[in-house]
C-alpha cells in the first residue's frame, strides 16, 4: 500500500465511483495468499508412483491458469498455481500441504486428488480454516458442511450416482430383480447405499443378491456365477476397471444377459470395454456428466471447440482422448468463476462463502443442461448425470438429466 496523498486520493475517485455500483468490489480485503497482484493456489497430485496417470489433471490445470494469466488474470490478479507431487502417499500429502499452507502461504487448496490423501489432511485444513475446494474424489464425506465447513467436493459422488441408477430402474424396470457386485470398501459401499436409498422401501424386495469382492481376489468369476444363480435380471456392476472387464467377459462366457448397469468409474471405452471385448459390452448402461472428447457428436459444439482451442494453444502435449484433460479444464473453470465472484474480498471466509453459493453454473465441457449448484448446506457442486448406452463402438447418451442429490 502506497502512502495516502491528496493526489492518490483524487486519482482514486473515478475508480471508486465506478466501483460503488458493485458493493462486492468496493472493499479490498485479503488473507494470506492474496494481494493486489496475485492469488496463490495450492494443489497436490500424484505425478509419480502408481497413480501417476492422474498427473494429467494437474498439468491441465496448470496450463489453464497460465492461459488465464496471459489473458490478464482474474480481476487483474495473476494466479500462482503451486502444485506438488504427493505420489498418492498420505504422509507425503500431509508434508506437502503443510508446506503449501505454512511456507508458501496459499489462499486455498484446490482439487487435490485421492480419498486417502485428502482424508489425511481433512482435520488439519478445517482446524486451520483453509478452503479445501473441489476435491478430486467421489467419496461422500466431502459434503459434510456441518462438521467440515472448509472441505468441498466436486464431481457427482458415488452415492448420488447410485441414486441416479435407482431412479432409472424405478422408471424403466420397476419389477427388476437386481444383483449387485461391488468392491468391498467405502467406494463400493457408497454406491450400494445410494442405490438402496434411491429404491427406498422397494430395495429389500428388488435387490435379490449382493456379492462383494476384495481387490486382492484374482477374479470375480465365482461372484458372477452366484449372482446369476439368484435369478436376477438386472446386474449392477460396481467395480474398478480390471474387475469390470472380467465381469463383462464372464457374463458373456456363461451366457447371462441381464440389463447391465456399469458404474462410471469403469466406463472408459479404451481402458475397460475394449479389454472385455466390445461385442460383449454392447447395450451396457452407465452415466456421465462430461462431454466425451472422442464423441464425434460434439464436433461442432461451441464448448468442445473452446476446450479444443485451449488444448491446441496451451496444452499441445496433452492427451486429447483422455477424460482427465476435460476434467481438469472444467474444474479449473469452476474455481476461476468462484474467484471472479470474490471480487476484491479475497479472504478465506469469502472464498468459502462464494464457493458455497454457486448458482446454475454451466461450463463448456459439462453435458448440456448439467449445472453446478452449491449452498451452505449443499457441498456437492455436481449431482446430475445423464444415462448412456454402449452401442458396441461408443457411448450414446439418452434420456433426460437425472439428479441424485445426496445430502449428508
Amino acid at each position, binding site marked *: 500500500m502506497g502512502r495516502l496523498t491528496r493526489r492518490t486520493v483524487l486519482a482514486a475517485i473515478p475508480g471508486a465511483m465506478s466501483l460503488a455500483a458493485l458493493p462486492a468490489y468496493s472493499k479490498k480485503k485479503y488473507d494470506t495468499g492474496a494481494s493486489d497482484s496475485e492469488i496463490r493456489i495450492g494443489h497436490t497430485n500424484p505425478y509419480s*508412483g502408481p497413480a501417476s496417470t492422474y498427473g494429467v489433471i494437474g498439468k491441465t490445470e496448470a496450463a489453464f491458469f497460465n492461459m488465464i494469466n496471459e489473458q490478464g488474470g482474474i480481476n487483474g490478479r495473476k494466479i500462482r498455481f503451486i502444485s506438488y507431487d504427493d505420489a498418492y*502417499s498420505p504422509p507425503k500429502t500431509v508434508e506437502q500441504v503443510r508446506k503449501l499452507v505454512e*511456507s508458501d502461504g496459499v489462499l486455498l487448496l484446490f482439487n487435490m486428488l485421492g480419498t486417502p490423501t485428502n482424508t489425511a489432511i481433512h482435520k488439519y485444513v478445517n482446524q486451520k480454516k483453509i478452503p479445501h475446494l473441489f476435491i478430486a474424489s467421489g467419496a461422500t464425506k466431502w459434503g459434510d458442511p456441518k462438521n467440515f465447513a472448509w472441505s468441498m467436493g466436486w464431481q457427482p459422488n458415488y452415492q448420488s450416482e447410485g441414486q441416479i441408477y435407482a431412479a432409472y430402474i424405478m422408471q424403466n424396470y420397476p419389477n427388476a430383480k437386481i444383483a449387485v457386485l461391488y468392491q468391498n470398501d467405502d467406494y463400493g459401499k457408497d454406491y450400494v447405499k445410494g442405490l438402496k436409498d434411491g429404491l427406498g422401501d422397494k430395495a429389500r424386495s428388488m435387490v435379490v443378491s449382493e456379492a462383494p469382492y476384495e481387490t486382492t481376489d484374482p477374479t470375480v468369476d465365482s461372484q458372477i456365477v452366484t449372482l446369476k444363480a439368484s435369478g436376477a435380471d438386472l446386474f449392477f456392476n460396481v467395480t474398478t476397471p480390471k474387475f469390470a472387464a472380467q465381469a463383462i467377459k464372464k457374463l458373456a462366457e456363461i451366457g447371462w444377459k441381464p440389463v447391465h448397469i456399469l458404474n462410471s468409474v469403469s466406463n472408459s471405452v479404451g481402458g475397460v470395454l475394449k479389454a472385455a471385448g466390445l461385442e460383449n459390452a454392447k447395450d451396457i448402461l452407465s452415466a456421465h456428466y462430461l462431454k466425451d472428447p472422442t464423441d464425434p457428436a460434439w464436433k461442432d459444439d461451441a464448448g468442445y471447440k473452446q476446450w479444443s482451442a485451449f488444448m491446441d494453444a496451451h496444452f499441445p502435449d496433452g492427451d486429447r482422448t483422455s477424460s482427465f484433460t476435460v476434467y481438469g479444464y472444467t474444474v479449473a473453470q469452476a474455481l476461476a468463476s468462484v474467484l471472479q465472484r470474490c471480487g476484491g474480498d479475497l479472504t478465506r471466509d469469502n472464498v468459502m462463502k462464494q464457493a458455497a453459493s454457486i448458482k446454475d453454473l454451466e461450463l463448456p465441457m459439462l453435458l448440456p443442461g448439467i449445472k453446478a449448484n452449491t449452498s451452505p448446506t449443499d457441498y456437492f457442486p455436481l449431482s446430475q448425470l445423464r444415462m448412456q448406452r454402449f452401442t458396441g463402438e461408443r457411448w450414446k447418451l439418452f434420456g433426460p438429466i437425472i439428479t441424485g442429490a445426496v445430502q449428508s
Partner: protein
Amino acid sequence: MTFPARAVTAVAVVAALPAPLLVSSFVTFQLTLVMVYGLAILGLNLLTGFNGQFSLGHGAFYGLGAYAAAVLIDRWEVPYFCTLPVAGALCFAVGFLFGMPALRLQGIYLALATFALAAAMPQILKFSPLEPLTGGVQGIVIAKPDPPLWLPLDADQWLYYFTLAVLLLMCAGAANLVRSRTGRAIMAIRDDPIAAAAMGINTALYKTLTFGVSALYTGVAGALGAIAVQFVAPDSFTFLLSISLLVGLVIGGVGSIPGSLVGGAFVLFVPNVAEAVSTGLAGAIYGAIMLLVIFVMPTGAAGFARIALARLATARHNRVKS
C-alpha cells in the same frame, strides 16, 4: 567412539536442541520426520549394515508399528507415549518370527522374501475381517498429542523434542549393542558366518534376534511417524516405502548409526529438491542426484565423513611435524 566422532555427535545434539525454536512449525515437522525416517533406517542398518542380512520389507514393519500406535490411540485411547513400547514389542515378535524361516535364505533370496512382505502389507491392512480394527481403506485419523501444560511449546515443537528424546535413547541403545559382545557376534556373522559358527556363536539365534531388534527399531519409528502425520492408511505403506528406506541406508552409510540420520534427511528432502528443479522430470532428477551422491561418496555419507576426518587428521599431523 573416537574423538572426532564423539565431537561430531555432541555438536549435532547441541544443534538439534534449539532448532524448533528457530524455524517455522512446518520445518519443525519436517525435521521430526527426518528423525523418524532416520530411526527406521537405523533399524534396517542393524540388520543389513551390522548383520549382513538384506531386507526389502522394512516398510511393512514401519506400517505395522504405525498401525499399532494408531489402533491403540483410536480404539482404546491409550496415551501416545505408551504406544511406542507396544509397537516395538509387536514388531520385535513379528520380526523374530519372520526371521526364523528367513534363516534358510541368503542374500538376494532373502531380499525377495522380505519384498513379498512389503508387497502384501497394504492388502493385509485393507483385508475386510480386520476392518473394525484398521478402518480398511479409510485408514485411521488420530489427534495430535498436546504438549504438557507446564511447557511453553506448541504441538509441533513438543513432538520434535519427544521424537528427539526417543531417537537419542534408541541410538544410544544401538551404539551400546554393536559395541557389546553381542554386537561383535552380530558383525562376525556378517563378515564370515562359518568362522563365526566355528567360534561358537549360535548364528541362527543371533540372526533371528537381530531381525527382531531391527523390526523393533523400525516399528517404533513407524509409531512415531503415525503420531506425527496423524493419519495411517494402507496406501501410506506401499513397497515404495521399503525402497526409500533402503535408499536412505545406502546413501547414509551401511553400518553407521549417525549415517542413518543423513539417510533420513535424504529420503525426506531430496525428492522435494528434485521436484523444485522440474516437476515433469522429478523422478529422473532424483535418480541423477542419487547417482551423483553414490559416485562422490561410494561408502555413503558416513564413509565420506570418515575419510574426510582422516585426511584432516593426517594434514594436521604433517603440519605439526614440519
